[in-house]
């Protein structure tokens, strides 16, 4: 049983107000015994109703305590009738039904019974349908999430798994010795991607910038906002013959020249 759904069904509120049938009440109590969360919820609901009732508090005109104790003393020792779980139906209803029950009445009752049966069935079917719909909705959103993550993974494999793709691992320098990022570089397709494995988040107002070192000179390959754990590739400009790649921390938007003492990552091709 799904506890959340059970709570959301409103049955506990119905139970607290005494609106459930004997059978429903027994079911509620058995679930409450089994699932402590339901008892907590039931208590909260009952407290709300008790607080509501408190608004109507009233002192009896006379103190009845003494009189009650006297009546208890006068009680016979025989056990009492069990408590009804709900108020009796309207008085007078009995006679009304008695009059109606002739032969025609019986036929009517039979018709009503089957109508009631169909009504119940219909209700159960509707409930089952609603349950199924909500399960469907859940499955649909799960499916959507899996589809997205699959597409990402396929894209990753497609790019990185290409035999012409070369991975240049950039290792962390002094500011973050544990940092790791990879430039996937494909000489044939003339494509390059950066992937961040481990890198501290850039401070506010700062961004990481990727550089290629060509003939000993840094070439701007743009800023990126990837974070560790993104499992994502970001396309970066392709540079024909780099000797190395490096990442520096720069002001937001990047810098025309690298700030060398803020170099976080470096990897030779």
């Amino acid at each position, binding site marked *: 049983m799904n506890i959340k759904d059970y709570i959301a069904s409103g049955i506990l509120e119905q139970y607290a107000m005494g609106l459930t049938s004997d059978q429903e009440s027994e079911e509620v109590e058995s679930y409450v015994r089994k699932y402590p969360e339901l*008892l907590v919820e039931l208590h909260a609901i009952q407290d709300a109703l008790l607080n509501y009732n408190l608004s109507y508090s009233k002192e009896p*005109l006379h103190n009845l305590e003494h009189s009650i104790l006297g009546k208890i003393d006068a009680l016979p020792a025989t056990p009492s009738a069990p408590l009804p779980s709900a108020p009796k139906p309207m008085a007078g209803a009995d006679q009304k039904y008695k009059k109606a029950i002739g032969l025609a009445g019986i036929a009517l009752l039979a018709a009503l019974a089957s109508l009631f049966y169909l009504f119940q069935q219909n209700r159960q079917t509707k409930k089952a349908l609603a349950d199924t719909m909500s399960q469907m909705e859940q499955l649909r959103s799960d499916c959507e999430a899996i589809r997205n993550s699959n597409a990402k993974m396929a894209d990753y494999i497609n790019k990185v798994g290409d035999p012409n793709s070369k991975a240049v691992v950039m290792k962390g320098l002094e500011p973050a010795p544990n940092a790791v990022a990879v430039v996937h570089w494909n000489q044939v397709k003339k494509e390059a991607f950066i992937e961040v494995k481990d890198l501290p988040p850039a401070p506010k107002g700062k961004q990481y910038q990727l550089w290629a070192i060509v003939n000993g000179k840094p070439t701007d390959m743009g800023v990126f906002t990837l974070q560790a754990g993104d499992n994502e590739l970001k396309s970066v400009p392709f540079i024909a013959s780099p000797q190395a790649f490096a990442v520096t921390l720069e002001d937001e938007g990047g810098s025309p020249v690298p700030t060398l003492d803020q170099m976080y990552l470096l990897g030779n091709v």
Partner: protein
Amino acid sequence: MNTLPGKISDEEIIALLLDKDKRGVSYLYQAHSRLIFGVIYRIVKLEDLAENVMQDVFLKVWQNIESYNASKGRFLTWVVNIARNASIDVVRSKDYRKNQRTDNVDTEAAHHHSDEMEVDHIGVKEVVAKLDPKYSSLINLIYFEGYTQQEVAEELDMPLGTVKTRIRKAFSELRTVLK
């Protein structure tokens, strides 16, 4: 709801009642008579009749304590629901309805009067007042007037499902108001 600080707890009252110790009745009366009587009076609307029902309710609690257990939730809710059922039974009896035809105007007035007075008196006016009237009237119809949900649905001309949803909303509203 727990009993007031420094007072005897519901658990102790239950234990005494199970032991057939009449102090359980006394403590229950001392701790909760206003709440229980308030519910009865709100339903039967006549003070002396409410006092009779009140005594019957305490006898029922005394005689049926074995049928209470923790899986029913709060002990006090169990007691109050006995009071509610007994009161609605009285209101539906032929005697009551015969008398009510003549007393109708008086009791209606008394009842309005009491709603305002009592609520003011104990200072929890906010609880009912803060609640959207569409919710408080729904709770009152069902809990105090004894309407079935089906009857409410017909009365307010809305589907049964909407009535049930609205009851749940009423409670969640009530719980927010009480926070």
